């Protein structure tokens, strides 16, 4: 007698839990070759709202941990990713149409990317902060602080390497995030949620919504309780006008991280390139303190 398949249910990741979409909807996810892989939850604007509430709730705790501790947690994420390597190779291979060897290289690069940002957490203040020379008897110190709740439109084509490359730099400095995954390649993101849930990342720090980008992006961009939005995922997304999203984001003066543009059209960056500090720097606010200095 043959054993029945135990199929996995791909759900959202909000506030440390794995709920189905509030809307009850799901959609078919197909591989790069067009074969059915699984049904994924189709997130709605209310899921985005719930995710923002969860992210806001987690912000105080996460931004309050020491940078050293955040580095350890991120390193733990890399460890757990490594333990699930085979699963990610399968999912990335199916989603992006890569043979096993190439998919393995992508997963390795993603793990290394997390480790790289894990090392950065307690160096951000050293590099982006400063002791400013001022003409008076004051210590004048500028230090980077997290921006707050950050909405991220994850890249549409790079389902794992691109995903961790947009999440890790944002949470490294103490922000919490709401991520709208690649619409057509959401499965590695759902599995990443399971990794985060089992690697000491507090619930609500990363919230993952699988959804049609055009449907939910506008709600995320207009949400008054979101402090910044990363528009990387507009490249290759159906029916998304990034300029309109930026206009919506202006409603509460959100920080906007614009997509890379080539000839005026958004394109997805090369994720294998050296990431640099750009994505860390974009989601911190500089606080400057004047402190009287005795003689």
């Amino acid at each position, binding site marked *: 007698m043959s054993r029945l398949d135990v199929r996995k249910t791909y759900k959202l990741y909000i506030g440390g839990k794995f709920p189905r979409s509030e809307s009850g909807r799901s959609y078919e996810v197909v591989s790069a070759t067009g074969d059915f892989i699984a049904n994924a939850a189709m997130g709605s604007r209310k899921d985005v*709202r719930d995710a*923002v509430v969860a992210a*806001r709730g987690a912000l105080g705790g996460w931004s309050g941990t020491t940078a050293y501790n955040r580095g350890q947690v991120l390193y733990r994420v890399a460890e757990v990713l490594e333990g699930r390597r085979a699963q990610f190779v399968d999912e990335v291979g199916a989603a992006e149409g890569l043979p096993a060897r190439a998919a393995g290289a992508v997963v390795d690069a993603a793990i290394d990317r997390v480790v790289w940002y894990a090392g950065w957490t307690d160096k951000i203040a050293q590099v982006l902060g400063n002791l400013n020379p001022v003409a008076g008897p004051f210590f004048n110190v500028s230090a980077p602080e997290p921006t707050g709740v950050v909405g991220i439109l994850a890249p549409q084509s790079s389902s794992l390497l691109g995903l961790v490359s947009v999440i890790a730099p944002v949470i490294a400095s103490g922000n919490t995030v709401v991520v709208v995954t690649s619409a057509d390649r959401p499965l590695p993101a759902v599995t990443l949620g399971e990794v985060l849930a089992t690697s000491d990342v507090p619930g609500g720090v990363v919230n993952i919504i699988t959804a049609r980008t055009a449907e939910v992006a506008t*709600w995320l961009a*207009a*949400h*008054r*309780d*979101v402090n910044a939005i990363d528009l990387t995922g507009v490249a290759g997304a159906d029916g998304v006008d990034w300029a309109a999203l930026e206009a*919506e984001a202006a*409603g*509460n003066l959100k920080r906007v991280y614009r997509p890379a543009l080539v000839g005026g059209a958004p394109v997805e960056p090369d994720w294998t390139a050296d990431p640099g500090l750009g994505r860390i720097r974009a989601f911190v606010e500089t606080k400057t303190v004047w402190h009287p200095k005795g003689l």
Partner: protein
Amino acid sequence: MVTVSTTTRTAQDLTAQARDVLGVSRLTNHALTSWLHGLPGVDQVGCEARAASLGTRSVKTTSKAWAIDTAIGMIDLTTLEGSDTVGKVRSLCAKALVPDPLDGTTPRPAAICVYGDMVATAKAALGDSGIHVAAVATAFPSGRASMPVKLADTRDAVEAGADEIDMVIDRGAFLAGDYLTVFNQIAEVKMACGAAHLKVIMETGELVTYDNVRRASYLSMLAGGDFIKTSTGKVQPAATLPVTLVMLEAVRDWRELTGSQVGVKPAGGIKTTKDAIKYLVMVSEIAGDDWLTPEWFRFGASSLLNDLILQRQKLATGAYSGADYVTID
């Protein structure tokens, strides 16, 4: 100011009315026990299922806008902490006067609910705005004090200008079956209230069964309560939908029985717009639309107001709002 002679007459009236309702010549604990225990029992499973089913109604767009404004107008904006300061009460009053500085069309809550010693502060801060001041009295929240102390507590709040008094019943006496004591205490506090409205807090979280909630509701109404209120907010569980359902049935049936209408106030644990709308649906379905006004239905809450304002802003602007756009209580 209420004189002693009129209060004495009122007490006799209450006892006389109670005798009429019970059909007895003398109001004894035995008579009250027979009557209260003769009330039909509450079907626990049916009650909870009915409450849950009423909570599934979808209220959207214009109906939701109406519900939000109605709910805001029914709030008793409450601060009952040992750490309450004059400044905190004033800022709460300021919030009641201007709930949302971004939108002048936001309605005001019905009342401010504070401890008795803060009544004068609240009264002064609210001026002639028409927002009532409710004071908790009678050794709130436990109710464990002698009767003279409870009456003095009540008179003190009334003399300071309280429009409404929220009293707690003696749950110990109630659970011990000493219904006459509970009746007399409520009736005496009602006298001490004078013109102020009396809300009777039953602390349903300590009454254990729905049958007891029904009995306490009838006893409170019999003894002259103008409102019956679920909880102090200091005991868990506080207000729940099934408990409120039992109370709404009680006030509905009481009006059929005696012709006088009594209000209902769930308090404690109602924090979201969604919760508030569930209660409004229940009021309409169980008691009827006559109760859908601040005169007959109130929410005892503090953080609920902010959530209602956020939802109101969402309806007005089309974008989800956040805690940066409301005051911190």
